[in-house]
């Protein structure tokens, strides 16, 4: 898994690529929580190059969403492939996350 950060105005964009699974969910979680602790209230995760997500990965997103809501922040996801989209759909996570087709839409909102 590769993780890159950049800023776009108020938003912090995380570009996530590769696999998110048992081998790296902890490091992803640590990085995400670190950004929240630093005060980032608008985080967008760009998942365009994410190939695979397991239940460990999904749980990281769930915990992050809870924490963001407690901090009155927003967590959005965008640019998912069909495969990742399907996982979010089947698991029902698509009903609790703000998911955008592209980055422009995510930034606009």
């Amino acid at each position: 898994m590769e993780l890159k950060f950049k800023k776009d105005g108020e938003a912090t964009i995380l570009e996530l690529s590769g696999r998110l699974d048992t081998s790296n969910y902890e490091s992803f979680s640590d990085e995400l929580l670190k950004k929240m602790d630093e005060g980032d209230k608008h985080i967008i995760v760009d998942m365009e190059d994410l190939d695979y997500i397991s239940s460990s990965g999904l749980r990281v997103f769930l915990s992050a969403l809870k924490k963001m809501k407690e901090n009155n922040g927003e967590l959005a996801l965008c640019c998912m492939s069909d495969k990742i989209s399907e996982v979010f759909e089947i698991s029902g996570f698509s009903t609790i996350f703000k998911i955008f087709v592209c980055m422009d839409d995510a930034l606009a909102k």
Partner: protein
Amino acid sequence: MENNFLNIPEEIALLALGEDGEVHPKIKSPKFDIVIASAILMDLAIHHRIDTDRVNIIPDKLEPLNDPILDVAIEEIKEQNKPLPIKDWIADLSLMGQFFRDEIIKSLVSKGVLKIENKQVLWVFSKRVYPLVEDKEVKEVRARIRDLVFSDNIPEPKDIVILSIVKHSDLLDILFTDKELDDYKQRINQIAKMDMIGLVIGEEMDEFKLYDIKAFFSGEEKSAEEMLEEHIRELKEKFRITDSGRLPEWLRRGTPQYEKTLEFVREVGTGDITFNHRTKQYQVNSYDFIGHGFGSGN
């Protein structure tokens, strides 16, 4: 406060137990062994001992949790130590159902949640309350799951899996009235979908063939070997096991442990038995929460 006082199989068992000690009838069925097996796997996933995707269980850190129920499952998975379909693991652990049922009750008694009186399992405090944990109240499972469904809060992973198990095992009537099920159907479905193992349980329960064990064994006298082989055939059909190599050693013809299994069948006169890998003991399946090995005068 995160609730780690009880594991998920224990909380599922408590859902099935009324304040008067009445056990929900759906629990007294071999099908409930699938529920227990799934609960164990889901708990291991939450504890990062395994990972899952839509199809497979993937072993992760297989260190023990100091939990007698979960650690047995960890040892089983360690023996294979490779990704395997979720349904295969549900089948394998379901074969140990009676052992897990007994261990769950033993554990709940030792944690001060339940007591055994006159061969009946009862809540210690005569109502649905857990003892204080480090002087703090821990909300009991039924109240917690109901509160979650009636709110729009983001669920905790543990509560997701519990509701997922309950829903996919057709046990929602344990938690909700018909009207509540109607009013909150969407919310229940939303939460219950959020666990990948839960999605597989639904499919497994639909395909699981229930047999009337007693009817199966009625009629002419059978030898111990015939009784055992019948039970094995039934299990293979129930869990769609086509490769006999996948059977545990105690059910695999030609192994020394199989010979011991046969001896036990001869002794008890039925092939409907189970084997505890940890204690190396056999017992007859009772599909109840007090097996013959515990709490019944032993």
